């Protein structure tokens, strides 16, 4: 099974391209800051320099190095995406597994909760939460995003669990006296591991997009630089009107590349795991 997945994985161009882009950007975000000795908010040079020469992505109206901001921003953006997506996936799994496996009134209550948060426009909730929170960290932002984005994952994991729990091997485990938690962990979760991975990837991308909206509206982390914050500052100091395209194009392109690559890799992974979708 493992070797089979690997066999198809290395032959799937969608997966390779998507994963390649993500790895390159992740590499820049993780290693890059070590090569930049100045803080991304430091005033390092001439103002409004176009890209090239000493400053790869030019400088903004304050003379800040935009490449340094981009590199640090990538790091924050990946962090928020991974953390927010991870928290959402974890909550979605717990709620989905318990609701789907237990059924009955536990399911009723959890399902009601899921549906309520599902129809709630969560970004508006995040506005309120973040606005009252004067000082904000990237981790806090990720936590709030994770706490609001889990419902659809919970819903689809619940449906999958529902269809698995009536299978013979689950009945057998139950007959031999295995506890619910163990059945979920050992019998049900492994059978939908690929699905769980795909869910996490989608939540990862979604968290990045939500974080960028929050940053843009002025509710981003106050202690870090992120790609969304770069866009917010570019808009606030009218980079568009000054013709400073190098201020707002790279950060947006970075977000689009990350999220797009995640989605494409997701489709590729789906094809790897699901024989019906493979193109031979």
């Amino acid at each position: 099974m493992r070797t089979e997945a690997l066999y198809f994985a290395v032959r799937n161009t969608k997966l390779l391209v998507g994963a390649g882009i993500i790895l390159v950007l992740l590499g820049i975000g993780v290693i890059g800051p070590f090569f930049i000795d100045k803080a991304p908010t430091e005033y390092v040079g001439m103002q409004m320099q176009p890209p090239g020469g000493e400053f790869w992505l030019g400088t903004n109206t304050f003379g800040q190095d935009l490449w340094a901001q981009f590199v640090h921003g990538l790091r924050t953006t990946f962090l928020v995406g991974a953390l927010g997506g991870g928290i959402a996936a974890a909550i979605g799994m717990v709620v989905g597994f318990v609701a789907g496996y237990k059924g009955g009134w536990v399911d009723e209550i959890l399902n009601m909760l899921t549906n309520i948060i599902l129809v709630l426009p969560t970004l508006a909730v995040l506005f309120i939460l973040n606005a009252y929170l004067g000082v904000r960290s990237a981790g806090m932002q990720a936590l709030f995003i994770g706490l609001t984005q889990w419902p659809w994952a919970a819903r689809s994991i619940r449906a999958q669990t529902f269809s698995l729990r009536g299978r013979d091997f689950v009945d057998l485990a139950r007959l031999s006296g295995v506890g619910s938690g163990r059945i979920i962990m050992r019998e049900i979760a492994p059978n939908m591991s690929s699905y769980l991975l795909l869910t996490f990837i989608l939540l990862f991308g979604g968290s990045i997009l939500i974080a960028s909206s929050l940053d843009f509206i002025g509710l981003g982390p106050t202690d870090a630089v992120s790609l969304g914050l770069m866009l917010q500052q570019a808009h606030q100091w009218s980079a568009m009107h000054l013709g400073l395209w190098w201020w707002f194009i790279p950060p947006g392109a970075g977000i689009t590349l990350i999220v797009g690559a995640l989605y494409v890799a997701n489709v590729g992974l789906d094809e790897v795991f699901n024989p019906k979708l493979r193109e031979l």
Partner: protein
Amino acid sequence: MRRYFGRKLLVYGLTFFMAVTVNWLVPRLMPGDPVASMLARARVAQPEAQEALRVYYNNLFGFDLPWWQQYLNSWGSLFRGDFGISLWAFPTPVADLLTRAVPYSLALLIPSILISWVVGNRLGALAARRKILDNTVLPVSYVLTATPYLWLAALMAWAFGIVWGIFPVAGGYSFSITPSFTWDFFLDLAWHWLLPFASLFLVALGGWAIGMRNVIIYELESDYANYLSALGAPQRLIRRYAFRNAVLPQITGLALQLGVLVAGALVTEIVFSYPGLGSLILAAIQNKDFFLLQGAFLFIVLGVLIANFIIDVVYVIVDPRTRVGMAGASA
């Protein structure tokens, strides 16, 4: 059908209840004192004046009452349509500011959601199982759906508004024109509306096309499609049946995406300084006008719930199974 609507309305009722509760709770739970920060903003030096302001603000929030009374009062003022007084646009009531902004937001949201949904579904249905079209529509759709709304809006504003100078990039209408029921004003309005609409439309389009393509492929593999083609039915007919079935999950998807679409419209409005709810929220955040922010929040929640209910009604009309109480849509 009664059970279906009963369940839906219960969820919406509880959601609204929770939204109002969160709205009431957050200012009281969060670190920091909103009254203190408003006092700091007012920059009053005299201690007597500061004390008077503190009493005034405490009264305004009702912080001097026991908590359950504060909570009940918040419901009371909600039903009276009283959202408080805006601090940013003092002394305009928040409700007035919001009702003035809502038409602009709706004018952006409703056409962009509906048209992108219809066009995206058609596009996705066309692309499914057609090699060349699939290989062009799908990648473009993925790029579009991965694009942050605000970035595409910024790109379009920059390209069409500043580099080529075809479209205006700020406001709902030109500052030189006074709003009136004239043809000129209407044209000006449409001219300002087009770019924000187009950027919202494009980002939303991708997601619908991808969704429809995947569902159509699934439907074309189903038994009824195989049976029809075994009978020798023309491919067009089979696709039409598949499309009608595939629309159902897309309607559910529309309900699920509403929050994301509204959020997209808010940031798009900010990019274009469009005078809708998004720009109000930005002003509220920048000026720490919490009454305005919370009022906008309740407006958005209410709007999304109403839209959800409309979609439920549409679903019942489209899917006969829900009418006779057979499965169909799950609550």
